[in-house]
């Protein structure tokens, strides 16, 4: 029994080491470039835990955005969770979270800021269950809740730097002024404007209204923007406008090459697995929560993925890598 535990602990440490080796430290590991035309599907890693895991998320598991970034991250950790997706309605998510807890699932990931209120009610009822919740920068003082959040402004800043090298007029399509969406948009604006571009950001007021995102992107295109970016699952509408108008696109959360293989320049991709691996190690050693962890460029939780199909100049790429190095060194403030 003791030997089995030791092997399991070793496997977790090994997985973390692999993740760190793949993603952490230095500017070269905070970026990657896809091979043009390659399959974007994430390869399943070796399982880091025998504990049962469930995921509750607001949008579809294949949304090329927020939820898919989590599913991909779990895949990298070799975890096949039970999934309840499409739960924009918080009450439905709460029922799913409670249901998984009652079924004895060991780790329940509540992947949505809006689930925080429900979690505050549910988590104390199941002290033996570990809940992982985000995006949130604090765990609400609950001992069995881990929180996670991306410093999305960092990747936003880098995307902004690259975008400014392509155009001096940039349009941004935001969903709601909250969470990582507003961090990304504001970081992007800061990076673009620091490099001489002018920006126009419009928040549609909805994470899911594709029609509004489309109309907003079209308004930007009519205004003559040379670059578009946006966030949330509704951004697929904006990507269509970018494609129709031949405007370069910058993505965030997941790699948006799946939507626009030719015009996606770069995407800030969330690698939640970096913090999840850390949390799972702690859960297996008996600590079920009590901490908030951030995804950053430095810890490899945020990875800038360049599109191999897009012919980005060497200067622009160098500027991006310099910005990443400066952000990691603390020489650029992205907030």
């Amino acid at each position, binding site marked *: 029994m003791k030997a089995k535990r030791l092997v399991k602990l070793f496997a977790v440490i090994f997985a973390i080491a692999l993740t760190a080796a793949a993603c952490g430290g230095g500017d070269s590991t905070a970026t990657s470039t896809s091979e043009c035309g390659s399959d974007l599907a994430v390869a399943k890693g070796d399982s880091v835990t025998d504990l049962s895991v469930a995921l509750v998320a607001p*949008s*579809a*598991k*294949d*949304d*090329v955005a927020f939820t*898919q970034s989590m599913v991909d991250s779990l895949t990298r950790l070799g975890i096949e969770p039970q999934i309840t997706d*499409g739960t*924009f309605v918080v009450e439905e998510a709460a029922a799913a979270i409670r249901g998984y807890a009652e079924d004895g699932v060991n780790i329940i990931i509540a992947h949505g800021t809006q689930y925080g209120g429900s979690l505050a009610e549910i988590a104390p009822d199941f002290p033996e269950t570990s809940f992982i919740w985000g995006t949130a920068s604090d765990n609400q003082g609950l001992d069995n809740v881990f929180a996670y959040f991306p410093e999305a402004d960092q990747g936003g800043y880098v995307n902004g730097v690259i975008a400014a090298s392509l155009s001096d007029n940039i*349009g941004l399509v935001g969903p709601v*002024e909250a969470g990582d969406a507003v961090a990304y948009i504001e970081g992007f604006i800061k990076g673009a404007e620091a490099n001489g571009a002018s920006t*126009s*950001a*419009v*928040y*549609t*007021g*909805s994470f*899911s*209204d*594709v*029609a*509004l995102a*489309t*109309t*907003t992107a*079209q*308004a*930007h295109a*009519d*205004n003559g923007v040379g670059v578009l970016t946006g966030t949330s*699952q*509704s951004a*697929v*509408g904006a*990507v*269509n406008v970018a*494609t*129709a108008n031949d405007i370069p696109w910058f993505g965030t959360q997941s790699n948006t090459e*799946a*939507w626009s293989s030719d015009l996606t320049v770069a995407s800030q991709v969330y690698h939640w697995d970096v913090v999840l691996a850390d949390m799972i190690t702690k859960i297996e050693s008996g600590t079920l929560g009590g901490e908030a962890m951030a995804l950053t460029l430095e810890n490899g939780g945020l990875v800038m993925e360049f599109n191999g199909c897009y012919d980005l100049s060497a200067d622009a790429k160098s500027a991006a890598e310099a910005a990443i190095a400066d952000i990691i060194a603390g020489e650029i403030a992205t907030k």
Partner: protein
Amino acid sequence: MSQFFTVSVLLATLATAIRFAVPYLLAALGETIGQRSGVLNLGVDGIMLLGGFGAYYTVLETQSHLAGIGVGIAVGLFMGIVYAYVTVFLHAEQGISGIGIFLFGLGFSDLLFQELVGTPKPIKPLPTLDKLPGVGGIFEPLIDIPVVGELLFDHNLLTYFALLLVPFVTWLLMKTTFGMNVRAVGENPQAADSLGVSVAKTRFIAILIGSSLAGLAGATLSLQLAIFQHNLTNGLGFIAVALVYFGAWQPRWVLAGALLYGLVTATRIRWQSLDIIPQSASDIAAMAPAIITILALVLLASRVRGPAALTKPFSRH
């Protein structure tokens, strides 16, 4: 503000407003016919979602917009048969039945999307007149007409169909025997029945027309956006139902309401993109279309009377 009042920006805003209004208009015109017969269908949004997915998936698989539109209408027709059977023949309460249809449409369209598509895949968008296969060249000079060319001719065929539907529905309701029967069963089904009008048959047909148009509205939305996603309509069908009240059950005023809603939405987005509305006020701006609709409804509600038998099931016994 001055940058908004340029010809190009104003025309682009108006063109966006028209594009935005088309799905509302199609769904609201269909709902107008249904409500004039005394049947409220709160399931419009769900039918739109199913029609929208049917059209999207068909185009994804066949590359044929015509087939997609046909499937969208067929899905609407089928849902109309279900709704009509439940409300007309089983005399179910219309509000609850409509909500049931909506929830079914919301859930089932998402289920089908997840199972059959998964990751959202863009399809080719509906072509504008100048890009119509074979005949597009005829319209190219029209789009080049200064000032109004793009505003009037840079739309897809469904836009013109929706606009032409306004006088057609007016004629249908006001000038035909069927329309007279629809209005009669919507006002006083007992009296209509005593005069030999089949209330059930008239309502049944009115619901089928309305639901087919809701399916077409969903198809228009997904084909215009060239994508489908969970809850693509985002409550658009409920706005369409509100527009029927806004339009006082008159097709021309329903058109006015749809265009106003589209114009307010397009204007606020344009103003935000031009930084006329500061970013700090974006949340308030996002509410503007809904607030204007509610205000209009409040102002109109006391002045206009709807069909007297609206939402009331009819039974001879």
